[in-house]
């Protein structure tokens, strides 16, 4: 574990990839000026994009947790016909190009989509709405939560659950007091990954939800459109997205790690 001899060659071997990952981020931060960032944040369009990104991604995470937790438990613990198919299906949206996801959503939930007529009869039109933004995010990001949590559920020592059951705990109590706490790191990690992926979602959103400032223009869309209109604003927004993502990822990981260990 503490083999200091291997540290140097390992670091040397990792250096090309690590520096390749870090350099563009550093370049972005170097090009974005603090003045522009402040100015951008005071500008109404960017502020609306930030607000929209925050609300939609939080809703996405809530949906992923509410419906993804039972799905993860099902995949991790239950045997049923077609399980391997479900397993693969859950991973599919993550590896699909987001543009494919966007077109799939459009031809399914759009006005002329497979379910479009049914939705229209209920007075629901999804494309170009905030609901469409959330749907695009859930589609591409929720599987990350399900997958991570399923792995965590599967890793829980079944003997501990058995012991709780022998001590008279009901199934629900066992789940709440034993299984869930032991999988909490997976749940939190999965939720963070889902949130981060949703925050960066672009391709499915622009196709399914379109681009309208304040309604469907999330930060990635604002950056893409801004890249062509005003590179300085785009750089500022990109830097803000980069820093917030990093800070939140690091903070939540740190907090979650400590809190879970002390629990």
């Amino acid at each position, binding site marked *: 574990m503490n083999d200091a001899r291997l540290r140097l060659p390992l670091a040397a071997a990792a250096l090309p990839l690590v520096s390749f990952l870090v350099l563009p981020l550093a370049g972005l931060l170097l090009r974005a000026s603090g003045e522009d960032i402040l100015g951008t944040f005071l500008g109404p369009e960017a502020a609306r994009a930030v607000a929209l990104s925050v609300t939609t991604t939080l809703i996405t995470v809530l949906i992923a947790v509410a419906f993804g937790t039972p799905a993860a438990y099902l995949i991790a613990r239950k045997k049923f016909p077609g399980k391997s198919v479900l397993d693969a299906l859950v991973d599919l949206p993550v590896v699909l190009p987001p543009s494919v996801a966007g077109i799939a959503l459009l031809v399914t939930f759009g006005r002329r989509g497979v379910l479009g007529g049914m939705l229209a009869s209920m007075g629901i039109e999804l494309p170009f709405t905030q609901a469409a933004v959330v749907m695009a995010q859930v589609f591409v990001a929720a599987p990350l939560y399900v997958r991570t949590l399923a792995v965590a559920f599967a890793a829980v020592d079944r003997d501990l659950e058995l012991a709780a059951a022998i001590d008279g705990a009901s199934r629900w109590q066992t789940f709440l007091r034993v299984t869930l706490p032991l999988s909490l790191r997976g749940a939190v990690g999965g939720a963070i990954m889902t949130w981060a992926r949703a925050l960066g979602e672009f391709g499915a959103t622009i196709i399914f939800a379109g681009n309208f400032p304040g309604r469907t223009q999330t930060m990635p869309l604002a950056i893409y*459109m801004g890249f062509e209109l005003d590179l300085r604003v785009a750089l500022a927004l990109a830097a803000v997205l980069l820093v917030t993502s990093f800070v939140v990822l690091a903070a939540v990981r740190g907090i979650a790690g400590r809190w879970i260990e002390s629990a």
Partner: protein
Amino acid sequence: MNGIAARIVLTVFAAASLNEAFHRAADEYSAVNPGTEFLFNFAGSQQLAQQIALGARADVFASADMRQMRAAMPMIDTASVQILVRNRLVVVVPSSPGRRVRRLADLGSPGVKIVLAANSVPAGEYALRFIGKCAEARDFPAGFNSAVMKNVVSYEENVRAVLAKVVLAEADAGVVYVTDAASVKNHAVETIDIPERLNVIAEYPIGRTRESAHAADAERFIRFLLSARGQEILAHAGFTPAGRTAEGFAPKPASPENTRHE
């Protein structure tokens, strides 16, 4: 000159609306100039201009307006810039029986979903100018401009994305170029003509990049596009020929037109 020995790849950055016409022109050019191959990058002109300005390797740039040609200007050989073709706007609507937009004035009806190209996209800027012209015209109701703008549900990243949303009938109407509407197969959309007085004529400038590795070939391809045959190919796709006469064809870098209209 000696095209047989050397294989040349011309990289052409062109406005999304030029897609079909340029593919056809390139095929004919390659037939006459064997050894010349084409690498196309079709996108919104504003995106191409940014890519070129940030150092993307291209030999030829064809933009859908002078604003974006000017944005790429530091990397463009200004002496080579000429007007390639003209294009006109048209309103496209889904060809379904229950369509909500039947004439231009319907664009302002409540509940109509309109998709435009973003303001940074030439087609988007032209569309805004067209709507502005309508609002000033006597035969359109007062408040037409704001009524239409209220109906806009999305500002797409290029004009072909606008067309796609109408083809899929997700939008009730979109403003695209005549050439885009002509490219749709199977009558998936219907068009509503925009009369001359309300229309906006788009001028497409073309030029070669300063640092093109194949400057002579780039210029020869541009000459081909401007030749009678080249213009014929473009006209076949619905473009209006550049017209070297009446409206004054001038091989100069820029016409002063095209200040941003909001």
